[in-house]
């Protein structure tokens, strides 16, 4: 077990190293666009006009952005910084990227956790009922409901909700379900914060819940066919005890892994909802950094942070899996 964890941690570091290298190289394919855009504000200024002035500007900007040294030197600086926990400074704001990410991590994590809670609260009863009452009308209805939310993109659900509540919902509903221009953190103004989080949490939670529900249903169906469940029935136990204590407990183990994997994806999964509901999270931050004038350190930083959370949550999930189900053996 110990050897397994050590090996996995080492492999995780290898993966993170590869991710960091890929994103570094990808961004260095073409640096001219970034330099030209940044040089735009300097041309005509202190460096003078004309072709020579523009060239001079580019030189200054390259030095400012740290793009004037050779590629191996840049890579070395970047990697040594990374090992010391320094993700560099944003091109645009000049602030340390790690600090900027920390400021924006709160809303993203909060939204992700709320979504998972909504998803579990909806999916657990729905998944159990539709497995226990397999092929009844209620099963068909619940399965259609889940396939519907699985298939329909969250931003489409969000937009339709906004339109419907704004046009037909009256003041309160549209106030609760529309996008908010002002956002307050959970600690400074909890009421306002919950108001801003409610709609994206519910909508994202429905989408995630659909995935969990389908998976839980298939797991329950599998477990309900097992011998020990039949034994429980023949012992004359009540339905409730069989389903909750015998079946659900075993069906939940793989579902927990799925929930863990979904948790790993929350940082990157909410980009669209964050931008629709103007939540100042990591998704919003990185989309801005990528789509506008590419801000290299920000892109590198977010990609690395996302990769780190992803691989370590996966490791945690695998360890928990073995702890919950002793039949699993690591190799």
């Amino acid at each position, binding site marked *: 077990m110990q050897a397994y964890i050590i090996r996995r941690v080492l492999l995780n570091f290898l993966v993170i190293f*590869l991710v960091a290298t890929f994103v570094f190289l990808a961004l260095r394919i073409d640096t001219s666009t970034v330099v030209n855009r940044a040089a735009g504000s300097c041309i005509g200024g202190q460096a003078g006009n004309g072709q020579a002035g523009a060239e001079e500007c580019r030189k200054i900007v390259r030095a400012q952005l740290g793009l004037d040294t050779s590629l191996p030197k840049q890579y070395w600086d970047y990697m040594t910084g990374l090992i010391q926990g320094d993700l560099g400074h944003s091109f645009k704001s000049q602030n340390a990227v790690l600090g900027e990410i920390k400021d924006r991590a709160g809303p993203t994590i909060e939204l992700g956790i709320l979504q998972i809670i909504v998803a579990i609260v909806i999916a657990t009863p729905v998944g159990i009922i539709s497995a226990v009452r397999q092929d009844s009308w209620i099963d068909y209805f619940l399965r259609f409901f889940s396939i519907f939310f699985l*298939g329909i993109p969250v931003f489409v659900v969000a937009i339709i909700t906004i*339109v419907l509540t704004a046009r037909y919902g009256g003041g309160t509903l549209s106030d609760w379900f529309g996008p908010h221009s002002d956002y307050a953190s959970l600690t400074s103004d909890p009421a306002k914060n919950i108001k801003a989080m409610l709609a994206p949490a519910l909508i994202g939670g429905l989408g995630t819940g659909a995935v969990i529900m389908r998976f839980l249903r298939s797991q329950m169906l599998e477990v309900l066919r097992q011998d020990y469940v039949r034994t429980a029935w023949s012992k004359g136990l009540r339905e409730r005890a069989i389903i909750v204590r015998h079946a659900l407990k075993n069906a939940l183990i793989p579902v927990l892994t799925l929930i863990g994997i979904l948790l790993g994806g929350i940082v990157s999964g909410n980009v669209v909802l964050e931008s629709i509901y103007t939540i100042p999270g990591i998704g919003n931050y990185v989309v801005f950094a990528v789509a506008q004038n590419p801000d290299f350190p920000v892109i590198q930083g*977010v990609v690395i942070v996302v990769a780190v959370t992803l691989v370590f949550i996966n490791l945690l999930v695998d360890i928990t899996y073995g702890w919950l189900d002793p039949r699993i053996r690591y190799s």
Partner: protein
Amino acid sequence: MAQESAIPAVTPAAPETAAPRRGSAWRGIWKFIRKKPLGAIGFAIVGFLLLATIGVPKASFGWPSLPDRPLGFELGSPILQRYSPEQNFYNARGRVRSFESPSSNHWLGTDKSGRDVWARIVNGARRSLFVAVWALVLATALGAGIGVVSGYFGKWMDTVIQRLMDALQSFPPLIALILIVTINPLTSGPNLFVIAIALGLVGIPSVQRIVRSVVLATREQQYVEAARTIGATDLRTMRYYIIPNIMASIIIVFSTGIGVAILAESTLGFIAPDKLPEGPSWGIMLSDAYPVIVDHPGPGLAAAGAIALAVLGFNLAGDALRDVLDPRLRLG
């Protein structure tokens, strides 16, 4: 498949050959609709999308380009459209007829610049579909190729490839997509083929993972062992014994992936419309309509509905296909 081929063997042989065959095809379709109603809805939606892409082809051949020449010959304007997607309509006073409600002329109304929304949706279908198809061609070709190699050879090759795939999969997909499209060293402006390539690259790890797991199971089959015992080379074993037996899984991955690619392409259009070439695209339509969507919901809801319907259709069709071809396959 196996069931259907068993039916003629059980039923007493009929003297005529042509007529019952046609009847059994219809009966097969009817049986499918009854047994998998959701799958049938999915195939109906996919069929309608394909219908929307059909135009009267022109004899102008050349390298495939998107959106007008996706298969190497030029597709004419879609037969389902009534007006050109770029035509602006004016009223008697010379004003743009913007945000009109649906009418018998404009089935889905008009957008801000007075263009026919139905025509834009139909043209958007062609664009989304072919971008997705080309993306999946790339993703399945490369992903399945890498998956077969890593699954078949195993050992250090597998370890190295799996770690590389882990690294690629740790990239947030949407961000990787925007990044590739922004860097784009191939063309000067936004280009649909570059978007298809980007979508394909982002999709490689998930395809590779599924294919690899299927290959791992297939490799242990006795017929593969037999082939190796009689001296088949690795290449021959892969080509004639492994690949034919994983084709079903590849087809399922391909069809399910198209829905994912359509969703990703329209999400990209919605988030960063300037990264896509101009023209009728569902994502760009939604992004254009979004600022005024509460006052004029028509065009926005039409685009949102089209995206939702297409993604839902491919999901349902892919699910049904999996149930029929390979129920044990685990996706994602």
